[in-house]
């Protein structure tokens, strides 16, 4: 039994899991070439339904960001409580040839974030469900920073 048997992705079909080298999944329009995340059944640019799912690039640049300072209400489900909640970064990362994807950032200090900086995709245990399953989420991390994914 592999470790992956006790894990699941936070959303079905949004990234490859389990995988040796997981990646976000997007759809690409076979008519106009535009991509979307997560995969859509049609193209929101040209209305075509000829779309195919593909892996999106794992590196990009930070387009904009903020820090979420208060704990969101449900449906937020991180396993945290008001006492254990830690502010987290949120941003859009521009993936070349793909799209700008919104995700949590591993960095929550605004002084260490800058528009245009290089970011890379990481996967990390987000919460543990009551049945013991570890839920995996994706995030973007500044390239070269120590991967502190406890955000």
């Amino acid at each position, binding site marked *: 039994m592999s470790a992956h048997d006790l894990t699941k992705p936070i959303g079905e079909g*949004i990234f490859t899991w389990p995988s040796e080298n997981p990646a976000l999944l997007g759809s690409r329009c076979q008519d106009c070439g535009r991509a979307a995340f997560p995969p859509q059944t049609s193209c929101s640019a040209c209305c075509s339904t000829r779309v195919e799912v593909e892996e999106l690039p794992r590196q990009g640049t930070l387009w904009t960001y903020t820090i979420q300072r208060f704990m969101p209400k449900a*449906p937020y489900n991180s396993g945290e409580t008001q006492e254990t909640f830690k502010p987290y970064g949120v*941003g859009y990362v521009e993936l070349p040839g793909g799209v700008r994807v919104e995700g*949590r950032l591993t960095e929550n200090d605004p002084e260490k974030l800058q528009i245009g900086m290089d970011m890379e995709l990481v996967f990390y245990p987000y919460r543990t469900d009551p049945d013991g399953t570890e839920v995996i989420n994706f995030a973007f991390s500044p390239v070269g920073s120590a991967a502190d994914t406890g955000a």
Partner: protein
Amino acid sequence: MDVAIVGVGIHPFGRTPERSGLQQGAYAARAALKDAGVAWSDVQFAYGGSFSAGSADALVNELGLTGLPFTNVANGCATGGSSLMSAYSAIKSGEFDLGMVVGFDKHDRGAFNADPKSMGIGGWYGEAGLMLTTQFFAMKITKYMADYGVSKRALAKVSEKAFQNGALNPNAWRQTPIGEEEILNSMMVNDPLTKYMFCSPSEGGIALLVCRADQASKYTDKPVIIKGAALRSRRYGSFEVFAPSQALEHIAGPTVDASKAVFEMAGVGPGDIDVAQLQDTEAGAEIMHMSENGFCENGEQEHMLLNGETTINGRLPVNTDGGCIANGEPIGASGLRQIYENVVQLRGEAGARQVPDDPKLAYSHVYGAPGISAVTILQR
């Protein structure tokens, strides 16, 4: 055929524990009827909406069961704007002579918690903590400040003005002025936006009576004409709230599209407008919406705000009643509050917050999830 607003009514915004949302709507409706001097039984049709306070058409239980066609409107933050547009079209078609537009709401405290599934987004988006309008506005203004050199001080100036104007408005929720320093130093919510830069969900009600302009003199000697009304949803490439991804290309958002359409419809330009109510979900939104609606170039807001050009006595008064920041945002009523304020300003009945020199043209703009905008131009 022109359409006129001949009666307006408001239930004060804020928190009113002793009245339900529906009762606040009925309170506003009775005030509008009184303002126009008509009976509820004279009203031939109604459009209304509420997000959290039940079906608007339940108002007939409060106002009277007259058998009129009452249509519920649910269009997020553009609910009021959509109700007004529907009533406008109904009168314009020639089908009806007199109708009511009403909106009310009563929300729980704290930020809205939208359900991603209701917007066609996977549940993971909410679980991961991305389904927050506050984040979107913070990220949009972060990018805008970097691109156009707008400062945090300009953000604080927007809020300072909102609270100043709220202090002059007996129907506002926040009636205490708050200074620039206190705004900047209040709790950070979503960087760079602090607590006093955001509006909060609140309560309130607004009702309007609309009629054929050629019959307006029956009800009022100060009719206000709807010169244009437009509603637009997002196009591919605009940066919108609740978007797990965005296009690499960038085009104007629904506000720009709706604004262009309404100016064309009214046959006037941004320079002709004497008073404007612009969606200020937070301070950055007002700044961006100033340029998106055509009132300035990108980046010009900095000196406009620091010079006080958008205060009540400034060149272009913006959010003269304190906007969403001082009134809170009861979704069903919020867009109609802007119309109410513009009617009161055009009639010259705004008291301590009256814009000087007899304003003739007034502009209103709402923006909301998941990328819709409604704008209106009124003329006295």
